[in-house]
């Protein structure tokens, strides 16, 4: 959740060289405009903040507020061939805890663990979407890039299924313009790029403290991913399943948010304007 620091203490030289510390509002310089953020006048709108606090805190009371566990079952994962990993020779050392076993040299991913991890990941995504965070879908698999972009378009979120330029996250103010807002969650539908190396985005997100959800196959490194989901990332059926699940969670979370806002606006009719953070 982006929290904007409105005031900073600026040491500035006053008259005759005395050091005065003045409280100065930050000026946003956004492409020629100069915005000066207004002071948050707490005394005038206490009700708004209480309402927003209630809206934000209610999902945190329940472990599965958005009921993501009802979206899929182990059988769905099996039918979508999520349990199929790569051959034994491609196995990554850190993926060994997530593997059920090996059959005719092909690794089989443990679907019980996948179910838990996927539930956690979907729950986290739902919470982020509920709080109006920016979600970025990343995948470098060319056969699924169109699918990923369509999923993002349907959710109202963002996608990047193309060549990843080096400074997209780390050099964002220069690339996009000053005052850009970075994604609050990055979902990797495949953590490898076309040369079978770890996607640069994982490392960059870790550098910038952006949480990541990633579908890790048996040849991937799950260490830097915040919410790894061990599963197959090569089959079209599996990818369609993931896209469908993420789309449903995000839409569900956004609907929930709209409903909560409407409920609370009806309960407290004096509050005319509710801040949507």
């Amino acid at each position, binding site marked *: 959740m982006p929290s904007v620091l409105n005031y900073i203490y600026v040491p500035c030289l006053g008259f005759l060289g005395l050091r005065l510390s003045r409280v100065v509002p930050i000026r946003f310089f956004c*492409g020629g405009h100069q915005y000066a953020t207004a002071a948050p006048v707490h005394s005038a709108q206490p009700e708004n903040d209480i309402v927003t606090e209630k809206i934000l805190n209610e999902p945190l009371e329940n472990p599965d507020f958005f009921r993501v566990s009802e979206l899929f079952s182990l059988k769905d994962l099996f039918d979508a061939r999520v349990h199929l990993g790569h051959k034994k020779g491609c196995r990554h050392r850190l993926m060994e805890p997530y593997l059920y076993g090996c059959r005719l040299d092909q690794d089989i991913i443990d679907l019980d663990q996948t179910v838990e991890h996927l539930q956690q990941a979907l729950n986290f995504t739902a919470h982020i979407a509920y709080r109006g965070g920016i979600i970025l879908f990343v995948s470098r698999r060319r056969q699924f890039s*169109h699918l990923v972009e369509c999923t993002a378009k349907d959710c109202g979120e963002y996608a990047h299924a193309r060549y990843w330029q080096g400074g997209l996250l780390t050099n964002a103010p220069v690339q996009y313009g000053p005052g850009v807002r970075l994604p609050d969650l990055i979902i990797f539908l495949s953590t490898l790029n076309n040369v079978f190396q770890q996607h640069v985005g994982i490392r960059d997100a870790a550098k910038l403290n952006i949480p990541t959800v990633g579908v890790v196959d048996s040849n991937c490194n799950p260490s830097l991913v915040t919410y790894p989901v061990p599963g197959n990332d090569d089959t079209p059926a599996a990818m369609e399943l993931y896209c469908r699940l993420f789309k449903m969670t995000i839409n569900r979370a956004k609907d929930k948010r709209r409903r909560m806002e409407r409920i609370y606006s009806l309960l407290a009719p004096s509050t005319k304007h509710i801040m949507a953070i």
Partner: protein
Amino acid sequence: MAVSCVRTMGLVLGKSVNCSSSLDAVMSQLSRQVLGRQICVSCALHRKNLAAAGPEKFTVEFIQKQAEEFNIGKRHLANMMGEDPESFTQEDIDRSIAYLFPSGLFDKKARPLMKHPEEIFPKQRAIQWGADRRPFHFLFYTGKQMYYSVMHELYGKMLKIEKYQDHLRAKGLFSQDVKQISLGTSRWFTKEELEALLVETISTHDYNHFIQLMERLLSLPYCATEVEFVLRYRRQLEAPSAKRIVPLLQRDEWGVAFSTSDGCRKTSNCSVVLRECGSGCITINGQNYLHYFPTLQDREQLMFPFQFTGMLGRFDLECTVSGGGRSSQAGALRLATSRALLSFLSEREAENMRQAGLLTPDPRVRERKKPGQEGARRKFTWNKR
């Protein structure tokens, strides 16, 4: 005078020192230090790196303000010229500005100009996100949102066509010889045109990829469903051979068919009247062509159009020519006769004449002499020492 200055300075300082509290004493001490120390900052530090800032950015409000000022100025101009402000077009504006501010400058771009701000200021992208700082476009984080959205749309269209083809195959109605897309005389947008369309810089690799994908779309048999999408990225070519302006075939009072045309070469200009008499007599500026052109080469030039089309004895020529020398006058006459002949010929013969080069005006003119050289190309004799 310097002494009095020093004394006044001393008085001022003395006064400040005589002020009572210790804080003031401290302040005055500091002030003396500040005034006494000379702060010299070189102007090199003040110079900003202008090149690093990039092209100048204009805000949306600035452009809007300029547009309002332009409209008000247009009305004032119309009033000044005594015309109706409502129906004052851009051509009228250009005409009025050229009248009010006559300029002898050669460069058209250096002359005074009054155009709508959208044509003057380069198109820039507005801020890409809203009040809550969420970007508008779903491909914003790729960096090249417009290009990738075009590629995404293109791929979507291809998938749609393939799905339709599969649907037809399932029904058994698929056929290879279906009506192909009619592109006409058009070409793909160049890289610069595409950049202008998308308001975004594109690399050569991306552009080639785009063209490749478009060609692949066109190779599908049922691509005719997506004509409008494809034509959006094609530019219509003007016909390479502009329609030949064939001179009118007129008839004079005796019923003889004749046609008139002009021709020029270097600095000569001529006008020719070609009559279908059947005599083959040629008059130039009142004189017979044998007297006017004693040289065989000039007469050959004159006769070449007739010799080529095989109509040597059929026509009667009456020409007026001025300017230039004898060779350029002959060339001008040749061009004029060829043009006049067009009205008496069929399409195929006219095409033959065009391919022979009879209808092309010779663009060569005398090149000017340059300073530091003896002539247009000839340099002064090179001396080793």
